[in-house]
């Protein structure tokens, strides 16, 4: 990523006369700095490396040395772990995928609609609703947990994915509304005003002008919704009871409970596998994720 570098460079050039800075950035210091950074990085991801190594070595080796370099590579834990607990990890992954697609769609649609109203339209009591929306962002979910459960239980939704998905279509993740509002405010008003002068209605303006321009923020919303939904544990724990419906976190937990002392390798293999979708998303959208954090201060 070169953008920050470029930005810094222009920053430094601006206004400051170029002058020699004798004490800064000698090659030796840069090398030392890189050495330090590599060390910090290794310490930081050591747990992950250890898990990766433990998933490909024989059981006896896992707890006999703290090394992250395997003596040999034996991938048999992966296929074994994949089918070890019926209905199998493939089913858990599929279930997670279904829930995530629903949640992402819901958040994208509902939060964008609400954000457009707050960012662009004038209506009575707008200030009040905006304040309420911000308030719900700070509210611990536990306050609504039990009545929501009672509600979903009363309409027979417990045991289905609906309690995990439908709330997203009702924009209950106010955080994303806020993120989208922030982004939409940055879009020049002239663009949608021009559309309206050309005779486009609110909906048309929203769909044809605002929505395409909001795509970067929509991507951030989608990525974060996916990761949070994929990692969510409490929701599925409360609402799902049938093994066949379990998403990955519950499947993994069952693995822990069901296993004797003899399948750590499989456990680590499946744990690592369960991190893979998040990891791949991270690789693909790294910039977006990090900027999402930096610009909105959301939790990671």
């Amino acid at each position, binding site marked *: *990523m070169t953008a920050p*570098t470029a*930005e810094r460079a222009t920053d430094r050039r601006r206004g400051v006369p170029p002058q020699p800075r004798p004490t800064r*950035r000698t090659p030796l210091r840069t090398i030392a*700095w890189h050495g330090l*950074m590599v060390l910090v*990085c290794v310490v*930081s991801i050591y*747990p992950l490396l*250890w*898990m990766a190594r433990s998933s490909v070595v024989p059981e006896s080796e896992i707890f006999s040395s703290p090394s992250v370099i395997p003596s040999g590579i034996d991938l048999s834990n992966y296929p074994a772990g994949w089918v070890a607990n019926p209905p199998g990890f493939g089913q858990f992954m599929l279930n997670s995928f279904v829930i995530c697609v629903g949640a992402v769609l819901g958040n994208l649609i*509902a939060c964008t*609609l*609400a954000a457009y*109203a*707050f960012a662009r*339209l004038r209506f*009575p009591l707008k200030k009040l609703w*905006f304040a*309420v*929306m*911000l308030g719900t962002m*700070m*509210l*611990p*979910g*536990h*306050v*609504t*947990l*039990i*009545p*929501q*459960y*009672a*509600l979903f239980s009363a309409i027979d939704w417990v045991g289905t994915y609906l309690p995990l998905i439908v*709330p997203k279509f*009702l924009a*209950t993740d106010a955080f994303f509304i806020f993120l989208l509002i*922030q*982004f939409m405010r940055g879009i020049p008003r002239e663009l949608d005003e021009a559309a309206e002068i050309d005779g486009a209605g*609110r909906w048309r303006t929203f769909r044809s002008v605002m929505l395409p321009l909001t795509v970067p923020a929509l991507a951030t919303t989608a990525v974060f919704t996916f*990761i949070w939904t994929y990692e969510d*544990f*409490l929701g599925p724990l409360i609402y799902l009871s049938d093994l066949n419906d379990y998403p990955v*976190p519950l499947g*993994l937990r069952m693995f822990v409970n069901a296993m004797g002392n003899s399948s750590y390798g499989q456990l*680590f293999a499946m744990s690592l596998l*369960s991190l893979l979708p*998040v990891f791949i998303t*991270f690789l693909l959208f790294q910039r977006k*994720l*990090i900027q999402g954090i*930096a*610009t*909105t*201060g*959301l*939790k*990671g």
Partner: protein
Amino acid sequence: MLKAETTAAARSAAPVRPGGAALSGGAVRGRAPKPRRSPRRRGEARAGYLFLLPWFIGLVGLVLGPMLVSAYLSFTEYDLFHDPVWVGLDNYRTMFTDDPRYLQSLRVTFTYVVASVPLRLAVALGLALLMNRTVRGMSFYRAVLYLPSLLGGSVAIAVLWRQLFGGEGAVNQILALVGIDGPSWISSPDTSLLTIIVLAVWQFGSPMVIFLAGLRQIPQEVLEAATVDGAGAVRRFFSVVLPLLTPLVFFNVIMQTIVAFQAFTPSFIISNGTGGPVDSTLFYTLYLYIKGFGEFEMGYASAMAWVLVAIIAVFTAVNFLGARRWVYYGDES
């Protein structure tokens, strides 16, 4: 592109201002209501509410409504299958006078918040300072260091933690290399909470990224000026960098505290849903879950939820009050 986004960072740093004035400012174009609305304005108002409709349904049906219901339930005995029975303040009274496990969960959670939030932020700030330079490979380092923050909340990591800090886990293997015979961190009541605090500190990535963005906002001229005036690196940090960074420190403290009070998954997985050993990892939310969904004392759990809201509100308020002493905003004299 990046320029625009970093200004967005500055803008969103604004919400941390006391009173939240910056949050609503600019958001809402407050106009004096005209006595007669033009048809156009009426149409706009209708459109506004139509766009907000899904959010409204969610707000009433899934947030405000349930809040009222849970406030009511907190004064009742309720097990989901029978009608709630009014018991007045009994739930609240029991909590503080007749439920040692509840008090234990408070102790555990407070310890966790007070230890993990400052430590996590200190690590985040330290690394952000270390990384605040323009070097090749920076985005790689940043990505690697951010990774634990992204994955840390998952069940897989909690599972991993149990093994890392187990009796024969990698942590003790490493300690053995330097001749220390470590305990089984997870199964000893003295150290089990510590492992969860370490797990929290390990997830320093997101505050680090926020600090890093903040450091990049500090005008180079200011630092150059300080250098010209003879300030060394340490002096520059304490007199220039840190004061300019305090709004972000404050923002991170608020957000991380709120999140930390609600920590759930690690304690659940690491203690296998019990809060053990000997309730040493009985987090507030875990106990709430046990009460509500294990013992079906949903009235009691609702009361617990409201006390949690109160605790978080008090912590946030105290933070805001204290902030006047140490948070520096450039535009105030």
